[in-house]
């Protein structure tokens, strides 16, 4: 089991951990989205490492990463659309104040 694979997987795990910390601890929608970007980046690193060190002859591994890049772009686009709409309605995108549906 190569040391390079382990290094890449640990990097992916660290990015995932930092992303979860950010997504759970921030109050602003834009910062939460940055946390989600880091989580997806961690997943991408893992995928490329698995492709390179375990199955380099299967291009479907790279294709999966392309789909994740696409998902990141889509999630940012729709997320910022929602942020604009919220900002216009309420004047801020703080998630602490977004408690209208709370029980």
């Amino acid at each position: 089991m190569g040391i390079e694979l382990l290094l890449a997987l640990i990097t992916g795990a660290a990015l995932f951990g930092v992303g979860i910390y950010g997504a759970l601890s921030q109050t602003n929608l834009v910062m939460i989205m940055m946390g989600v970007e880091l989580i997806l980046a961690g997943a991408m690193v893992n995928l490329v490492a698995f492709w390179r060190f375990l199955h380099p002859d299967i291009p479907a591994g790279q294709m999966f990463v392309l789909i994740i890049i696409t998902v990141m772009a889509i999630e940012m686009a729709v997320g910022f659309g929602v942020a604009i709409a919220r900002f216009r309605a309420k004047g801020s995108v703080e998630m602490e104040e977004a408690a209208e549906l709370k029980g």
Partner: protein
Amino acid sequence: MSAQMFFIGFFGLAAVWFGIVVFRTFSMVRSALALLFSQTALGAMFLSMQAEFLGVLQIMMMATEMSIMAIFMVMFMMDPGGLGEMDMTHQKRLSLIAGLVSFVGAVAVAVFADWGPAASVVPDAAQQTVDLGLELLGRSMLIFETAGITILTAMIAATAVAIQSVTRSNEHGH
């Protein structure tokens, strides 16, 4: 200690460090650009793992996306320069614990699983690009087309949510 191991370790460390800076700094623009450089370090990591097309694509797209995130931060946040040093977090202990637990869990899976022998023969970059293209438009055509339709839907949805209706009187701003 091969060159590849050094580069993977170095760029991985850079990516994680920039990722931590994102949430430690008070200036919002620094936060967005730190995320940008974290993604660039990841792109460099892909390049050092010989996934050339993915590395170049990651570097290119993430620069644009994170710059757009920077301008949204300047638009929506109260203190984009960070000079007020406001603390904008909540449930700190819970999120710290959640982050640490997920990190430790992922590392445990990585260390204790038996991944098998590491492959050493990688097709060269031009051949990889050709194979990726043939795969996208051949075996995975359905996935590719679905991704295309999803992007179109997302574009229409984002535009519909964000658009303001233009009445005759406020067209052209007067």
